């Protein structure tokens, strides 16, 4: 599949006539008194790379295990390609899973590991050999066929696990923290490769991860989970720029939250009166709320300007004192305090190399942002 026909480009979720490939309908999973997954409904389309993102214990892995058939839902229904999966054991599902620990068979060579699924299906020997060779070159492991897992590096094991889970050409591949065990550099490389492989094969991927950066990079869409529920589903862009709750805003990236009440409610703008800032906050888009309602203004650090004096054209301007500056190479993060005592985080790309006139800790500055920069969340 080329870029033009991939789910990433076609956005089937925006098409009301598109038929979802995987349907999760009101699925609940209880372990005794504990509810791991609470009434989750989710549609995933053919060719998507969908990320389930959440902290540990949020139920994302349990949801994945129910898709694979290792757990059965307490209530609700899972349909894969229109077929009800209730009571279908893992070995009878056309889905495969890549495990967090990779779960390679320690006593088998790389080749035998990858071939295992085809062997169980009774595929003729000659075909197994060709498909294993194909798969080895797809994951760039040519020449390592005879190695045992313990003779491989972490990155190589990850590729074997991927190859093994892809060889049966599953309709749906589930990946549990696929890159969790790799170091940062290797992880970034592998992320790009994973997307390439996914788009080449056109397989639908469901990825579980706790790493929000990874979810942003990989996914066509992602679902943010907490306490057994999916709180927001959307493209990485949507979820980052338009978080629907304080939790999502805070979980994805970092954010400044100003609590307040709606003071003025018009179709094209609202004004929020906040005790956190000395002045009112202008938001230049309408929101679904009523005057007087308690809301929060969520504002990303990189969307805030910081200067000694800011132009008056900026609708939201506040005086502040710099507490400290963290220099991170590509950007600097300023922790500033408003006269109200509210702490605000501001980040700025270090465009210039010279640091002679850089803003330093202790300075009095102005911070400000455009009316379109912030998001108002009601929950």
């Amino acid at each position: 599949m080329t870029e033009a026909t991939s789910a990433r480009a076609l956005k089937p979720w925006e098409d009301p006539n598109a038929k979802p490939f995987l349907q999760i309908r009101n699925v609940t999973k209880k372990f005794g008194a504990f509810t791991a997954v609470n009434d989750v409904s989710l549609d995933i389309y053919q060719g998507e790379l969908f990320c389930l993102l959440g902290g540990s214990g949020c139920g994302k892995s349990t949801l994945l295990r129910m898709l694979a058939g290792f757990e059965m839902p307490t209530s609700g229904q899972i349909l894969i390609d229109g077929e009800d999966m209730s009571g279908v054991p893992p070995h009878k599902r056309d889905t495969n899973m890549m495990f967090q620990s990779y779960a390679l068979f320690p006593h088998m060579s790389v080749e035998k590991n990858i071939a295992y699924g085809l062997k169980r299906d009774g595929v003729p020997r000659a075909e197994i050999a060709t498909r294993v060779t194909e798969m080895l070159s797809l994951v760039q492991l040519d020449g390592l066929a005879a190695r045992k897992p313990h003779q491989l590096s972490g990155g190589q094991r990850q590729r074997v696990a991927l190859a093994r889970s892809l060889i049966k050409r599953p309709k749906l591949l589930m990946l549990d923290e696929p890159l969790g065990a790799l170091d940062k550099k290797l992880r970034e490389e592998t992320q790009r490769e994973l997307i390439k492989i996914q788009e080449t094969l056109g397989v639908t991927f469901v990825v579980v991860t706790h790493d929000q950066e990874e979810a942003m990079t990989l996914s066509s869409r992602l679902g943010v989970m907490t306490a057994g529920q999916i709180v927001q589903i959307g493209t990485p862009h949507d979820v980052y720029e338009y978080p629907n709750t304080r939790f999502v805003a805070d979980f994805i990236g970092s954010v400044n939250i100003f609590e307040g009440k709606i003071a003025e409610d018009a179709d094209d703008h609202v004004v929020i009166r906040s005790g956190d800032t000395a002045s009112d906050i202008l938001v230049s888009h309408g929101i679904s709320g009523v005057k007087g309602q308690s809301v929060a203004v969520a504002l990303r650090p990189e969307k805030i300007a910081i200067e000694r004096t800011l132009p008056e054209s900026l609708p939201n301007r506040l005086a502040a004192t710099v507490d400290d500056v963290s220099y991170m190479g590509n950007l600097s993060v300023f922790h500033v305090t408003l006269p109200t005592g509210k702490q605000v985080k501001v980040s700025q790309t270090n465009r210039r190399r010279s640091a002679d006139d850089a803003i330093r800790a202790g300075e009095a500055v102005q911070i400000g942002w455009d009316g379109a920069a912030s998001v108002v969340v009601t929950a």
Partner: protein
Amino acid sequence: MRRSFSLRLSAFLGFVFLYAPILSLIIFSFNASKLVTVWGGFSTKWYAALLQDQQILDAAWVSLKVALMSATIATVIGTLASYALARFGRFPARMMLSGAVTAPLVMPEVIIGLSLLLLFVALESLVGWPAGRGVDTIVIAHATFGAAYATVVLGSRMGSLDRSIEEAAQDLGARPIRVFFDVTLPALAPALISAWLLVFTISLDDLVVASFVTGPGASTLPMVIFSKVRLGVSPEVNALATLIIVSISAVILIAAWQMQKSEAQSH
């Protein structure tokens, strides 16, 4: 270097404490004199005499047969029991099974022997099996308490086994029974070998239980040695003991080497 000296001294004393008796036994097995405590020059005549002694050869054969069979049976039972305990989660009588399975480890041998003897006698009069007592009953008895050791050895390995490799096999299309043979058993192999060897040596070594449940015509090696030693320690028994020590050491070395190899593989 004081510390190093005292360390070496204590290591030396430790080894002397452990191995001096065995070493003296080996040395005296080459004694030409019939008197155990008097050195009469080097000789291998007791080894020759040993090979002529039909009673000892028969007993060795009985012991070997019993050990082979009971180790195999115990390992199979131990595998099943530890699998049930590790995999089936909570099931009725789980506590009872885990208790019952490990009870023979702490039960006095005399009681095990006596209770098995009573069972065999009762069974014979009720269903006619096992008819009389001999090799069969010793095998059953050894397999019974050997299974307890095997379950403990296998259980610890089973507990540390990565469950996801079983799930991966299932996910790739293997039915549960195939998963067991393709993935679980190979992963358990080192523990299977050690469990089997452990039961094998315990069976070879056992005197008390075997004495209770045996009948005429089936004497194990420890029983023969014990009856001979009661008439005075003979150099022939020393020779026999030396042979046993050498063969057991060989088996242990091979097992250790195998374990090390598979240990390296699983990491």
